[in-house]
């Protein structure tokens, strides 16, 4: 059952996000609209994007509390995700093993970040005013995932060996059964839901960032004619 659910949500995720990325990539960007000052070279744009992705540059400029909570959450999630590779690799990759001791800190960072973001959404009148029910649900969903993970880490330890067998089974289509743990069950269900709604929700900000013209365009409209078909004057004169 759980295997089927995870497969299904993974398929929806891949197809849904794939479709969106295809849409973003093929939708025309008729005019040059980078937010300036902007890099004047492709390499410069790569650097600008890298800073956005890794350090959340713009958010840092905008609001320090949002930045720190949001960065803690995302960085924690990244490390936690990577740590999960130990269930899928056999033998466990060296660097994954090295990372393993940090997984609990990663989970805690996620928790702190998420609670901070939630608090901001409730306490700051402006953020409260722009929040839809789905914005809260999304936070609760991810909080649930992080919390259930941490619970298994600190209190109700599950049978790691069995979990690994289950994960390996997913990879090789030889389904193993899941250890009977309610917390683990919740953890996986919530993950499946998250993957399922990803392509239909604001989680699209992840691929979206890479396609944002105000960030990814090179500032060179005078030097190079962008989109020559628009002017239609071609090479004459």
């Amino acid at each position, binding site marked *: 059952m759980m295997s089927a659910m995870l497969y299904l949500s993974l398929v929806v995720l891949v197809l849904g996000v794939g479709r969106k990325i295809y*849409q*973003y990539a093929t*939708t*025309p*960007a*008729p*005019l*040059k*609209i980078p*937010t*300036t*000052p*902007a*890099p*004047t070279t492709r390499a*410069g744009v790569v650097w600008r994007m890298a800073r956005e992705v890794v350090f*959340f540059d*713009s*958010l840092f*400029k*905008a*609001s320090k509390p*949002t930045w720190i909570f*949001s960065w803690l959450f995302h960085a924690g999630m990244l490390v936690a995700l990577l740590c999960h590779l130990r269930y899928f690799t056999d033998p466990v990759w060296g660097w994954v093993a090295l990372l393993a001791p940090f997984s609990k800190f990663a989970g805690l960072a996620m928790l702190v970040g998420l609670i901070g*973001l939630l608090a*901001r*959404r409730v306490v*700051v*009148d*402006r*953020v409260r*005013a*722009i*929040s*839809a*029910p*789905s*914005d809260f649900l999304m936070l609760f969903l991810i909080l649930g995932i992080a919390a259930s993970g941490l619970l298994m880490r600190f209190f109700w330890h599950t049978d790691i060996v069995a979990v690994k067998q289950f994960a390996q089974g997913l990879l090789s289509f030889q389904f193993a059964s899941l250890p009977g743990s309610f917390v683990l069950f919740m953890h996986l269900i919530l993950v499946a839901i998250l993957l399922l709604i990803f392509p239909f*929700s*604001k989680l*699209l*900000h992840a691929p*979206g*960032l890479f*396609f*944002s*013209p*105000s*960030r990814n365009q090179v*500032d060179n*409209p*005078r*030097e190079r*004619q962008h*989109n*020559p078909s*628009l*002017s239609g*004057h071609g090479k004459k*004169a």
Partner: protein
Amino acid sequence: MAKKPEKKPEFETPVLGDYTEVPAVTPGSMDHSQPFVAKAAINEAIGFPGELVDNWQEVAVTKLGELVDNSRALRVYLDSCVKCGACTDKCHYFLGTGDPNNMPVARQDLLRSVYRRHYTVAGKYLPKLVGAKDLDEEMLDKWYKYFHQCSQCRRCSVYCPYGIDTAEVSMAAREIMDTIGKGQKYCNEIIGKVHKLGNNLGLPEPALADTLEGLEEDVEEEINVKVKFPLDVKGAEVMLVTPSADFFAEPHIDGLIGYGKVFHQAGISWTLSSHASEAANFGLFIGSVDNMKQVAVRIREAALELGVKRIVFGECGHAWRVAYSFLNTLAGPFDFLDSRYPVPQHIIEVTHDLMEQGRLKLDKSANDDKRVTFHDSCNVARASRMGNKPGGQLTLPRDVIKASCNHFFDMPRDTIGEGTFCCGGGGGLLTDDLLELRVKGAKPRMQALKDVHEQHQVTHMAAICAICKSQFSKVLPYYGFEMDQIISVHQLVGDALVFSADA
């Protein structure tokens, strides 16, 4: 004509404190503000239906779909917002009014909610959950009000982690409204005039020639030098395209005089064009690429007709955005011009180059009566460049000012440069039917001016935008300043230029 008595304003000018406070959310506080709706003839003249079409909901939703299909920006922006709130305290209109719909994300949501309802799975089946809404009369009313409370200044996009640019969203919304026959009078009327007469003021060629002649006489009288303000001179090296306000409005005209003096001293032959007697391009404000292109193509035609070698733009913010960012795209390539110069060039770039080459003789002390600060215009700062390095649009004007006067002081850091505050009148809002919005939207800039006034006894604020200049002349007095404290950068240059007796 009897002078109309100045009407007493029906609103209170915000009080400036010691620093800019973020106001509490005050729902509905600007719900009464909206610009005049354009009459049928005005809309029709620029290719839109005259009045609200019968099946407007359907037409609007279809148009929205088309726009999203044809703009990666719009598509990505509508999908990507995570409601993080980083932009909520960045808009000058929110800071000046507290109206939650003036928070950039809330403004976007007016369009996003309709997009979600009609074009996303979640919005179709679970509208309440994700805040998707139908486009009904109430929503259209909100669109008209709040998409005309955005000056498309892009300040929000600087701080958004995904670069979501509310300006793009506002432009799209205005284009949809134009498509269903609900156009804004101020913008659409002006675009019609440019198409018909070549400039925003509807100033015909003979009147323009007269004005320029008068200007030559005035300047000669004042400094005893025959500075020319040529019109339609074939074979001139430079064609200057400048906002038509430069021909008659204060303090704009002193800027025009400054450009003339620069060209005169550098010995560069130049001309204005009656066919392209306007740098402004309001097509941008209503998001209409068709109109924007039509207006831009005039400039190409004029350059070809006059056989000039360079195109230079006068001081105007959005015009420089359209010129710098879009002219080559909309009307290029300009391979018939002198390839040693960028096309187009900003007058600041021209003056800056000449200064570096030592071709201008300046006496800074001519401006010793002034202590100057500089207002970065939003479209220049965040949607263009000058020179060949990123950020030149911020440094070049300051270099030019510092070379022309002895006392220069910047306003607080978070209010200038890429974080500059709009004057409050950009984006097609420079109209008296939006006066309250303009006064309130100017608050953050006025606060910053007050700061440098108190700390450095700054007396004048220089700008390189016709809209900023008009807007500040109007709103400065509301905050206890004098209307003539706003000046053109090229006024400073012009006043500092030294002409020897035999010139």
